[in-house]
């Protein structure tokens, strides 16, 4: 029976597989009077040139593991309680800070999630990369290091390396910054690269480029990669082996195909099965009376003041759209596409610069403060961030009854209606007396849903409402949303960047780019036979397209 903890023997190599990193019984605890185990007995090994994907939900300990390997755990809060981390034969946990520093960037490197906060904003990026060289090779001349940096910039696929060398981080796009981070990490050719969710903050098209860049560099230099992620699509595309973690424990590990097609553990099965399929289910075409009409909606921001050039940002350019009763409209697009601007214009948080919005034929005022109370009730919204959507100082009961009380409903009656609504979202009446911080992200999102639905709206806007949730919780909240729709016949405008989610729940998909609607239609048509180039590109960039997660196999 092959030991799942060691990598499989590679054909063509002699003898033992070349193990770069071996983690043995790693235990990470909090410091302080009553230590909690955040990582409990983790063991795995990583071979040369291999990509290991560590997957798990939030709180699984996957990021902590990567920090522990690099020696970056915050000493006043966390510590390694026991275990060994052996990099190329040396136990990292026995080394001093000075010795660890010599290894960082030279033998092991890390790339983080947010490139903007990982780069020094007041130093040119070329100098930042050169700094890595000078720290470890003080004898290297300026001319030599500049040449090496320029070569590295070229290797990471950046156009016009001399110009990029002289740029500051804020002058580059998110994808370019992440390439700079990768350049910094790989310039001294370490054997191990740890990537902690490096593409989570990037658009899906950029993500595809960065993932293939990492793959190319890895193949060229023989680097081993540990890739921490929660996205199974990414895992299906890039992993050689997978390691599943949950609440600090190793759940399962094995080759990519073994885990994705024959997961032994129930938790792993549930995780994989909860990834929505990119192929939408067959649907009867939706027939319904038009409820909301947007005609030629546009929004322009005038930016720039005394010290910078005046420029205009066209967030929305002449968007026209009809939403019918009881319809689910999925609006997909990358950042800057205008989908959030559209949602916020509908609800009245943003005043459009041009065009109009008609509800049942009646024009709506731009700002929601100027709309009538009845109109306000009919459109409701659930936001993206469950941790900031509820007033942290108000009890749940107060927050959830606020809308009804504003509409003149008697407080006791409002409370009763909210209690009825809570059972719909699967929560007890006792939550009314608690505070938001006592609930998890998924529970808070249900509470926000209840707050919106108790107003009995005709249209519910879900602005990336499940994007910040773990994949299992996301599945539950989506099911809940569909259940509510079936019972109350509310129309849903679902804004998301995740094509899979949009494919599964929408009656109609709308693709937006640069403030315009690029393509619109039945989900099966849009996804299987996209008409526009951009749509094709968007669908093609979605990771894990070739894998049918729900059925644990590849598509034929």
């Amino acid at each position: 029976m092959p030991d799942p903890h060691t990598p499989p023997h590679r054909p063509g190599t002699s003898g033992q597989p070349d193990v770069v990193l071996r983690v043995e019984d790693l235990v990470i605890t909090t410091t302080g009077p009553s230590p909690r185990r955040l990582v409990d007995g983790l063991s795995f090994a990583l071979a040369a040139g291999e990509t290991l994907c560590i997957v798990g939900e939030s709180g699984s300990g996957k990021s902590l593991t990567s920090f522990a390997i690099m020696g970056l755990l915050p000493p006043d809060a966390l510590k390694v309680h026991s275990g060994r981390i052996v990099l190329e034969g040396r136990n990292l946990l026995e080394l001093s800070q000075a010795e660890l520093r010599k290894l960082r960037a030279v033998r092991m490197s890390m790339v983080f999630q947010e490139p903007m906060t990982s780069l020094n904003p007041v130093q040119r990026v070329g100098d930042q990369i050169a700094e890595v060289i000078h720290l470890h090779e003080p004898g290297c001349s300026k001319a030599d290091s500049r040449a090496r940096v320029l070569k590295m910039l070229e290797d990471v696929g950046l156009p016009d390396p001399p110009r990029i060398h002289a740029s500051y981080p804020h002058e580059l796009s998110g994808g370019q910054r992440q390439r700079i981070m990768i350049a910094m990490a790989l310039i001294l050719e370490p054997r191990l690269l740890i990537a902690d969710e490096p593409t989570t903050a990037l658009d899906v098209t950029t993500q595809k480029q960065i993932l293939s860049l990492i793959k190319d560099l890895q193949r060229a230099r023989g680097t081993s990669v540990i890739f921490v992620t929660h996205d199974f699509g990414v895992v299906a595309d890039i992993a050689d082996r997978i390691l599943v973690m949950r609440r600090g424990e190793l759940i399962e590990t094995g080759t990519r195909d073994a885990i994705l097609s024959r997961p032994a553990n129930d938790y792993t099965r549930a995780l994989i099965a909860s990834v929505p399929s990119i192929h939408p289910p067959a649907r009867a075409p939706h027939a319904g009376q038009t409820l909301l009409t947007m005609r030629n909606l546009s929004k322009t921001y005038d930016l720039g003041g005394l010290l910078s050039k005046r420029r205009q940002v066209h967030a929305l350019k002449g968007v026209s759209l009809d939403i019918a009763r009881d319809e689910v409209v999925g609006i997909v697009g990358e950042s800057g596409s205008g989908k959030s601007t559209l949602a916020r214009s509908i609800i009245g948080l943003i005043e459009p610069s041009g065009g109009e919005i008609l509800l049942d034929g009646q024009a709506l005022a731009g700002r929601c403060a100027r709309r009538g109370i009845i109109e306000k009730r009919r459109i409701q919204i659930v936001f993206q961030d469950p941790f900031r959507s509820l007033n942290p100082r108000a009890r749940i009961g107060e927050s959830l009854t606020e809308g009804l009380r504003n509409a003149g409903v008697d407080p006791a009656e409002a409370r009763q209606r909210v209690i009825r609504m809570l059972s719909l979202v699967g929560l007890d009446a006792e939550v009314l007396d608690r505070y938001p911080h006592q609930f998890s992200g998924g529970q808070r999102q249900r509470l926000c849903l209840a707050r919106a639905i108790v107003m009995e709206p005709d249209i519910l806007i879900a602005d990336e409402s499940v994007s910040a949730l773990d994949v299992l919780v996301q599945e539950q909240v989506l099911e809940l949303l569909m259940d509510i729709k079936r019972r109350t016949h509310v129309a849903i405008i679902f804004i998301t960047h995740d094509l899979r989610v949009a494919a599964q729940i929408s009656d109609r998909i709308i693709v937006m780019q640069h403030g315009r609607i690029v393509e619109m239609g039945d989900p099966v048509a849009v996804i299987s036979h996209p008409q526009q180039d951009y749509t094709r590109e968007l669908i093609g960039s979605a990771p894990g397209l070739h894998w049918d997660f729900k059925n644990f196999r590849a598509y034929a």
Partner: protein
Amino acid sequence: MSVSILSKIRESGILAGWATRLALLILLLIALMATFAPWLGTVDPTLLDPSIRLQGPSAEHWLGTDALGRDLYSRIVYGARVSFVVGFGVLAVTAVFGVFFGSVSGYFPAADAVIMRVMDGIMAIPGILLAIALVAVSGASLMTVLIAIAIPEIPRMTRLVRGVILSVRSEPYVEAALTLGTPTHTILIKHMFPNTFAPLIVQGTYVFASAVLLEAILSFLGAGIPPEIPSWGNIVAEGRKFFQLVPGPVLYPGLFLSITILSINLLGDALRDALDPKLAARL
């Protein structure tokens, strides 16, 4: 609100450091001293007897007498009252106006430009000079001095409140309240104000300290409260002439002044460290 803040302060352990505990103890003692002045072995602080002037400490006059033969100890104890009244008074005035102008400024962009320019104007004038000018214009009394000290402090409070309001304005829960039809005044009071309590408390301690010091300075310069009412500042002012003969009238009030302000600042620092965003988020 007050219950949850106090219990959070207790839980957070800011009162754990010995310096903070000492500071709190000192302030409590001085406050008690001010409150129970008549019963602490004092005599009438305005009672003059030039025949016993400029004496050193004795059994009858524990800290000696000043240039007009008044008991120094009693004057210092009663002087604490002035300091605390001025401190709290200025705090109250600054807080009320600061919150009002800060909220209006933070929430209504049109008003923001006007109010901020006025505040900039006030801040451009050195606080002490402004206070002296105001006292000169309206005569010296406790009330006038209080207002004169408060006015230069208002812009700082306003900016603080404005900053909090601006940052909270874009929070999703405020937007949610808007979409649920909550009127503007309710949004300000229910959703925005509670975020200002923590920074206000911290800034408040610094305003208190500043007010005590400013009052002493004004009295020292002769532009403060009338000299019959003992204030640490004017005791020092009168004692200045005879400092080489009898250092008491300068040293002892100065000592009390320094310790009081140091304690207030220490407390303010401890509160600021404890009520940092992580804790303030849960307040």
